[in-house]
């Protein structure tokens, strides 16, 4: 609830109690219910506090990276100890005396996390320790593990999941050799897996106790980015081992649709775009995937490289587990919303791609059938968005549907060999149509209201 709404509720409640609409206890319960949410909305103060601590920490690391050779071993080692002990002492002071100040708790976690890295960097620099940057990051990950739990600090947990992701990716030897990187981590996969499980424990705890807090939202973004990166790396490794574009397309479609549904079902922290990390990444990815296959030029490229492709290998363990998970999420979503969802195009992206790749593999069907199918489903999905948007009076949804149709038209127009003036005219006409329809819909919605 916004601050203004909370103030309004606070003003109204005494009269409601007087009129007997709610009891005194009920009024108190309502106020305390929304007080925590209002507290979570005090985001700007928290953001500035976090930014401040993060900048101070990164600044210290950067200054030390200059490598002051005027400083002897004694000064450098003392600096390493002072920075670490200072951050620990600050964390202790905040936990002991300012445990209710969320900004300070979060900030001290960030500072402690960064100072651990700074201390390790000074030691590495002073004694010219060998090893890759990933070895350094692995030690940092191990030693800073626990900071998030102990304060608690979700911002430190956010940094930790990002660090964990980098170390995990560097530990994937196949990916390192693919990218020709000198990577690798001395931490075993099972230890990394254990750290991830502990992190998930912390995340679940935060979801249960403070789901609407901005710090928990930060964790959701961290997890969403981490899983996306890991998935892309695994796909790249699979693609390198056995180039199979159609199988990869099916996996990507399943992944983005699942992300969207997980966001819709469990991991949304509010109504705004930035409060729905899984849903937004899933939706964006699925729509880009579908749109990128509407182009006939792209199809020609795929057709020419068909000799590099085999039948989609739907039998891999990853594919089977994805299909099962997708099925479970779909059932849960249908049971929850109990109607045709407006963004059906995103939810059914995997089904669209299964049919699309099946048509491509079939030698009996016309070469253009797969392209026509994906174009038709896109137009249909966008139309559902527009209709649902009009029914539910959601201008955003109508615009989304219209953007998808406009993009499809533009892609085909770019495919065609028209000159620049014709293409320019097409852009202007579509833009004017867009603005006109928007104005019309807005007027209708206002009249209805």
């Amino acid at each position, binding site marked *: 609830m916004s601050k203004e709404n909370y103030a309004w509720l606070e003003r109204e409640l005494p009269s409601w109690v007087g009129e007997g609409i709610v009891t005194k206890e009920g009024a108190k319960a309502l106020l305390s219910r929304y007080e925590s949410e209002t507290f979570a909305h005090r985001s700007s103060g928290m953001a500035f506090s976090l930014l401040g601590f993060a900048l101070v920490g990164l600044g210290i690391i950067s200054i030390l990276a200059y490598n002051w*050779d005027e400083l002897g071993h004694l000064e450098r080692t003392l600096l390493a100890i002072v920075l670490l002990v200072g951050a620990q002492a600050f964390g*202790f002071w905040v936990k002991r005396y300012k445990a209710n100040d969320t900004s300070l708790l979060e900030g001290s976690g960030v500072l402690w996390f960064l100072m651990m890295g700074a*201390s390790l960097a000074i*030691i590495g*620099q002073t004694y*010219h320790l060998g090893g890759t*940057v990933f070895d350094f990051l692995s*030690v940092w990950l191990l030693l800073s593990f626990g900071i998030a739990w102990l304060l608690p600090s979700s911002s430190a947990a956010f940094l930790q999941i990002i660090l964990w992701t980098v170390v995990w990716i560097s530990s994937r030897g196949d990916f390192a050799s693919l990218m020709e990187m000198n990577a690798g981590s001395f931490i075993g996969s099972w230890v990394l897996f254990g750290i991830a499980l502990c992190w998930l424990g912390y995340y679940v705890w935060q979801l249960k106790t403070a789901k609407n807090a901005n710090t928990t939202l930060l964790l959701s973004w961290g997890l969403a980015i981490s899983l996306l990166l890991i998935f892309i790396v695994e796909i790249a490794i699979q693609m390198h081992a056995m180039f199979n574009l159609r199988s990869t397309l099916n996996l990507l479609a399943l992944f983005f649709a699942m992300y969207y549904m997980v966001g819709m079902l469990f991991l949304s922290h509010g109504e705004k775009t930035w409060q729905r990390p899984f849903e937004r990444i899933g939706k964006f990815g699925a729509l880009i995937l579908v749109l990128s296959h509407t182009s006939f030029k792209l199809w020609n490229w795929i057709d020419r490289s068909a000799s590099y492709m085999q039948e989609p290998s739907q039998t891999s363990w990853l594919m089977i587990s994805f299909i099962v998970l997708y099925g479970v999420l779909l059932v849960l979503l249908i049971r929850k919303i109990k109607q045709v969802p407006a963004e059906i195009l995103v939810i059914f992206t995997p089904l669209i791609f299964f049919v699309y790749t099946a048509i491509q593999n079939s030698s009996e069907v016309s070469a253009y059938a797969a392209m026509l199918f994906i174009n038709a489903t896109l137009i249909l999905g966008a139309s559902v968005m527009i209709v649902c948007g009009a029914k539910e009076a959601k201008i955003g949804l109508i615009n989304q549907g219209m953007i998808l149709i406009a993009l499809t038209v533009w892609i085909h127009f770019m495919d065609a060999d028209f000159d620049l003036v014709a293409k320019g005219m097409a852009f202007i006409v579509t833009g004017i149509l867009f603005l006109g329809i928007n104005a019309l819909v807005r007027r209708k919605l206002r009249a209805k209201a």
Partner: protein
Amino acid sequence: MKTIKLFSWIFFGLLCVAQLGVILFQIVNYERILKEGEVFYFKVLPLDPYDAFRGRYVSLRFENVTKAPLAEGEVSRDEPSKGYAILEHNENGDAIKEVRFTKPSSGNFLEVDVNFIHQDSSSQKSATISLPFDRFYMREEIAPKAEKVLRARSGVTVNAKLRVLEGKGVIEELMVGEIPLSQFVLSK
């Protein structure tokens, strides 16, 4: 609730001790090597890359110490493994006498990675090894200059001054003759 709070404080203390312990252990360990370790000089070719956290350094490529004879009685291993390079001072400078897989009880030796073993026509086995040093951190503006100066002056020899104690080693300085590399670069 009280027990959880108590455990939280205990773990808080343990984490602080563990973090500080790792830092202090490294400091004490490396300072001991620098103080008590035997000095060896090995020829190196410095190059100049960058580490975002620890700053500018010169990457070291050691010359003449990447291959050494395998000690008598040692059995070849197919997989890369840890080994011990026995160091010696001789009339041609400092060198690796031989490589062993068993840790020596005394003398000057250094823990190294044995990459592979090969046998020549006279059945003499030798090991290709990597020393545990690959970089030397320098001030931001000096490292690239150092590489430039060294590339331009082909006659200049740079030696890594190492301190070695009980299998562990630390690079103390990069030397051009008797002068540290950073001073040599600044004087040019």
